[in-house]
C-alpha cells in the first residue's frame, strides 16, 4: 500500500510517503496499530485520522493493496 503522511505525522515518520505491507487483518484499525507501533510518537498526537483513496475512513474499513492511505494528524486550515 502507498501511504501518504502529512504535517506533524510526517515530521515523526521522517518521510512524506511510505510503502507499507497490507496488514494480515486488512482493517484500518489494524493498519493504525501497526503504523503506531512502528512510530510510537504518532500516539502522542492529539488525534490521528486516516483517509483511503481521498476519503476519510473508519476503523472497520477494509484496505486493499492498491489503496492509497493517508495519515491525517489534526487539521488546522483556515
Amino acid at each position, binding site marked *: 500500500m502507498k501511504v501518504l503522511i*502529512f*504535517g*506533524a505525522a510526517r515530521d515523526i515518520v521522517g518521510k512524506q510517503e511510505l510503502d507499507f505491507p497490507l496488514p494480515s487483518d486488512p482493517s484500518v484499525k489494524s493498519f493504525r496499530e501497526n503504523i503506531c507501533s512502528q512510530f510510537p510518537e504518532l500516539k502522542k498526537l*492529539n488525534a490521528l485520522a486516516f483517509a483511503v483513496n481521498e476519503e476519510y475512513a473508519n476503523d472497520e474499513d477494509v484496505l486493499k493493496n492498491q489503496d492509497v492511505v*493517508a495519515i491525517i494528524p*489534526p*487539521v*488546522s*486550515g483556515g
Partner: protein
Amino acid sequence: MKKNIHLSTKPLEIQTCRDFASGNSNGAECIFIGTVRNATQGNAVHQLHFECYESMAIKEMEKIADQALIKFEILTITIHHRVGTLAIGEIPVIIAVGAAHRSAAFDACQFAIDTLKETVPIWKKEFFEDGEVWVSAHP
C-alpha cells in the same frame, strides 16, 4: 456558477471571490476572511506555513460547498484557501456567500469556515522566534 473552490499558492483576492459570489438575485453577501495574526496565546508569530493533501482538500472543500447549498437558502459559495508560506496579515482563507437574504448568507458562511477547520486536510505550522509548531497537533 454556484460554487467555486480554489487552492492557491498565490495571494488570495477578495474581489475574485466576490465576482463568483455576486449576482443580480443576491441581496446579501457574507464574506469571511481569515488573516495571519501576529500572536498566538501571547507568543509572537513570525510567519505561517500551510501544507495540504491537495486532491483530498479540494474534494472536502467541494463537499462543504455542496452541503452549504443544500442546507441554506444561498445562491453561491466561494471557498479559496492559500497554501505555502504566509507573513503576518496575509490571507489564508476567504469564504464568500451570496444569498437573497442575509441570515442564510451569515449561517452558510459560518458553517463553511467551521466545517473547513474540522475536515479539510490542511495543516498550519506556526513559526516563532524560538521554534515552530504544528497547530493543534499535540495536547
